[in-house]
């Protein structure tokens, strides 16, 4: 009787242990399979904003190398950057933050500042590690040498940059206007328009919800690529003389007006929008057009025309003149049109 009781007790304990062990393994394996949470973006506002006393306008300048690279971030306000004929950076902020310069790199040739960061506080006055580095104010004006490279990141700013060497600008929100940029442009805004004029060099222009307008642009070196992409907006290109172009809009029309260069490669595409090319009648190009629910028509007759059978998505190829440039047009739902300029 005692032995039976012992066995029963032993059986109960073993069963309990086995059961709990099994459950533990199950729970651990279930939680081990759970994927880790992706890192969440940090809150925007981290630094402490240093405001000028009585909101007096702030102004400051620094001597720099002619090919200086200046970086800055803007919290809010209209930003205007202009090239001037001095090897000096001058910054002015009204109704907003202080100004400071942090030299990141010196030129080996003349020991002048070759890499400079513009700050929203004066390093000499404020030794505050937690101060906001971004400039903010009603109007922010910066003058830089004409050959300077300008890097701007901004949260909410209308940005205008003129007569400088190279520009790289990223806005969370706000329009971008660029004029007379010599060696290339990278411009991206998530809410706003991008306008580029009288500029040369490689260009990468992006807008999420906005239009892109480019006029009188050209390449500065062989191999320069022109890219323009918007998700929700139109792209208008006038007299853009680049040999490699990638132009795309998700929901919006593309209008190209100008000449295609010999040996150039041009790609235009939309998901839901028309593509119109206004080109000279004596153009020389090979055309390849693919369209889903759209139509194709041309004012300039195409030679060697090959057209697929009418079906849901059609493909068409042809040639104008000798066929020196290569043009690809793709649209899912939109009209493709070639007009005489």
């Amino acid at each position, binding site marked *: 009787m005692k032995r039976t009781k012992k066995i*029963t007790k032993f059986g*109960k304990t*073993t*069963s*309990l242990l*086995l*059961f709990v062990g*099994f*459950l533990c393994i*199950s*729970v651990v394996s*279930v*939680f081990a399979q759970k994927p880790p*949470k*992706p890192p*969440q*973006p*940090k*809150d*925007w*506002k*981290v630094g402490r904003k240093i405001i000028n006393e009585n909101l007096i306008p702030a102004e400051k300048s620094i001597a720099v190398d002619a090919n200086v690279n200046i970086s800055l*971030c803007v*919290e809010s306000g209209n930003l205007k950057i202009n090239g001037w004929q001095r090897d000096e950076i001058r910054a002015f902020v009204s109704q907003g933050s202080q100004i400071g310069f942090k030299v990141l790199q010196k030129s080996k040739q003349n020991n002048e500042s070759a890499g400079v960061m513009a700050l929203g506080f004066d390093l000499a006055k404020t030794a505050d590690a937690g101060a906001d580095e*971004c400039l903010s104010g009603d109007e922010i004006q910066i003058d830089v040498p004409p050959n300077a490279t300008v890097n701007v*990141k*901004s*949260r909410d700013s209308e940005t205008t940059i003129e007569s400088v060497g190279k520009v790289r600008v*990223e806005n*969370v929100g706000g329009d971008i206007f660029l004029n007379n940029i010599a060696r290339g442009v990278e411009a*991206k805004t*998530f*809410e706003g328009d991008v306008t580029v004029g009288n500029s040369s060099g490689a260009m990468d222009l*992006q807008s*999420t*919800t906005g239009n892109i307008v480019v006029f009188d642009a050209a390449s500065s070196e062989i191999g320069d690529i022109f890219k323009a*992409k918007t*998700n*929700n907006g139109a792209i208008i290109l006038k007299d853009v003389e680049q040999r490699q172009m990638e132009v*795309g809009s*998700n*929901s919006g029309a593309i209008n190209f007006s100008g000449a295609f260069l010999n040996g150039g490669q041009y790609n235009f*595409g939309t*998901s*839901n929008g028309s593509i119109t090319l206004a080109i000279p009648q004596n153009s020389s190009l090979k055309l390849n057009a*693919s*369209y*889903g629910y759209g139509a194709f028509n041309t004012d300039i007759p195409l030679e060697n025309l090959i057209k*697929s059978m009418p*079906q*849901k*998505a*059609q*493909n*068409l190829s042809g040639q104008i003149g000798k066929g020196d440039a290569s043009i*690809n047009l*793709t*649209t*899912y*739902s939109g009209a493709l049109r070639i007009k005489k300029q």
Partner: protein
Amino acid sequence: MTEKCFDIGMIQAFLDGELSAQTVDNISHHIALCDSCAMLLIEAEEESAFAFTALEQEFSNPLVPTHRLWAKINDSIESERKPIWQSVFIFFVNLKSNFSNQTITAFASLLIFIGLFTSILILRNDNGSNLATVNTTSKQTGQSAVSPVLNPETRGTIVNKAETYPSAIKIKNNLKPDDSRNNKSDFRAIKAVYVGGENNQSSSKTSLESSKIEFRKQTPKVETRAESENIAGEESYVKTIAALTETVNSRKDEVLKPSARFAFEKDLAVVDDAITKMKAEVKKNPKNEGAKQVLISSYQNKIDLLNSVTEKTELMASLK
């Protein structure tokens, strides 16, 4: 919400494209200005997207039966509603009270052992049935081929087996033996059946023979992948989009304002529509170059669209 706000029925009809152009225009204008309606639209779109994603995955595989599709959808919905940890917790709580009863404890332990034993048996049977499926499908094509590199002593045996796996041997040259060896579980299953079927043959099998048999098991998978791809590199587009979608879905609520979110969802719908229709067209007519071109372009557009949200997140994070 204002007097002009639309009800969920109207929003759903808007999403389904059942309204007239004028009404669509009115609703678009209103939603661009009205946050509450935009949120309503987003919710409706998310529900639709969830259902359509589940459906699309199932429909893309013509071999899957309809009842399995429904079961999968129901399972997805069920798992969404009830987290696993909750079920485990409830089970554990119930268990605590039940352990006072010795009989139940003993019975539960017995059940676990039986369950484990059964699952091992089922797993083994599954491996066997996999091969059986391959065998059956290959018989339908009825081709045969001889492997030139086999050991002469066992060649006869392999050739006979090859008759039952014609499609496998037909494209064996496209496979690297190293790749097939990596799949150890498949190899084990094949080998087990093969040896079982050839009990009276020589028991010593060279590694070369083994690798040849592996080819047979691997090949049907390769064929399926090639058939399912409409355009070259489609799989990588799909993978990229899936990865980006996962990232974007976890962040878009924080990054996009309601109006921007509306524009994003609208653009996404346009691209998705283009992908679905062009995919169907390419599947119907694989020689349609126009459809292929538009499909590639649409994939690229979708990637760019998803990327724009990721890039915005990065820019916002860098502006601290």
